[in-house]
């Protein structure tokens, strides 16, 4: 076999580069032996590099950013299931009721919560610019007291959330979703009470100013939902909204009146949460008791 002529300096430089790359991955600083005798080179050192990284169980990963470095999308891990107060609060601190257009999340389009949420807190997502997706099925109650004069708590208000399933929530209070202008769908089958302050506004009604809302279900069979004190739908004057409420016959008229007071163009469907009677007719659980549609206004 003919002798092979090798540029020794260049070969050293290449091997140094490989060894440096391995040390950069491992964090080591020692020399790495080149196993020439066994035709392995740096193979053993490369094989020893651990694969992947630490599994994240608690924290935030920004998954995309805009040209200026502001986050567009992010994944939020909270193995405890608890979203802290103001975790993603993005409102102004100066007292203006509007989304912060100068904050870190100002251009965010999507926050994905990777673990099932069990507890929401005051202002957890208030004014967060983007959509919020996650498993909220284990949340038992929305924050906020039920006091008719001062109750409630902003949780998602002014955020960009588009839909939410609150499979376990029993009580919804004032301000919880106030001015969620991208919110299209709400499902709360075990909700038995919706509390709204007296003289509500779009800023403090539970679904005040949710002008994109298309469908909402409150209650289900076995879970009659009562509307307390005032309309939860202040400013929800859009057409195309269907409000479905499960109730007993005794509460149909008051619920319908309160809902209509805010959802002035909605189709309102009231279904029987249990065997019940309304206007002299007996309805089985699940039956539609009444469908209300707007004919005109004056």
């Amino acid at each position, binding site marked *: 076999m003919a002798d092979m002529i090798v540029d020794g300096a260049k070969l050293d430089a290449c091997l140094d580069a490989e060894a440096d790359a391995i040390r950069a991955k491992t964090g080591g600083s020692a020399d790495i032996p080149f196993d020439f005798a066994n035709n392995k080179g740096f193979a053993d050192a490369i094989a020893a590099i651990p694969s992947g990284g630490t599994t994240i169980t608690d924290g935030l990963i920004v998954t995309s950013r805009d040209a200026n470095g502001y986050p567009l999308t992010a994944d939020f891990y909270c193995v405890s299931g608890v979203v802290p107060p103001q975790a993603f609060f993005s409102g102004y601190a100066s007292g203006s009721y509007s989304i912060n257009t100068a904050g870190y999340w100002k251009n965010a389009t999507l926050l994905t919560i990777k673990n099932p949420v069990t507890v929401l807190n005051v*202002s957890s997502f*208030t004014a967060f610019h983007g959509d919020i997706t996650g498993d909220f099925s284990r949340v038992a109650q929305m924050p906020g007291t039920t006091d008719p004069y001062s*109750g409630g708590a902003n949780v998602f208000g002014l955020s960009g959330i588009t839909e939410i399933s609150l499979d376990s929530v029993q009580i919804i209070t004032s301000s919880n979703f106030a001015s969620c202008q991208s919110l299209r769908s709400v499902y709360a089958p075990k909700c038995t009470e919706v509390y709204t302050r007296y003289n509500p506004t779009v800023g403090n009604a539970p679904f005040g*100013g949710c002008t994109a809302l298309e469908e909402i279900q409150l209650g289900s069979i076995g879970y009659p939902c009562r509307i307390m004190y005032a309309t939860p739908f202040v400013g929800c004057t859009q057409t195309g909204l269907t409000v479905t409420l499960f109730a007993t016959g005794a509460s149909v008229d008051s619920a319908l*009146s309160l809902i*209509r007071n805010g959802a002035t163009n909605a189709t309102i469907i009231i279904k029987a949460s249990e065997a019940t009677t309304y206007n002299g007719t007996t309805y089985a659980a699940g039956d539609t008791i*009444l469908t209300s549609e707007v004919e005109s*206004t*004056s």
Partner: protein
Amino acid sequence: MIIHCKNTLGDGTVIYKDYEVEDPVPVEDEPTTEADKAEAYDILMGVNE
């Protein structure tokens, strides 16, 4: 404002009923007074009075 509604019951009965409702509340504009700003901040922060 009076809303004239057609309420169709599950048994087929149709009842026409009027609901007198408050005029729609416009989406809140930027608060101007300090008191309004303070209230708006409380609303935003979900503070119970």
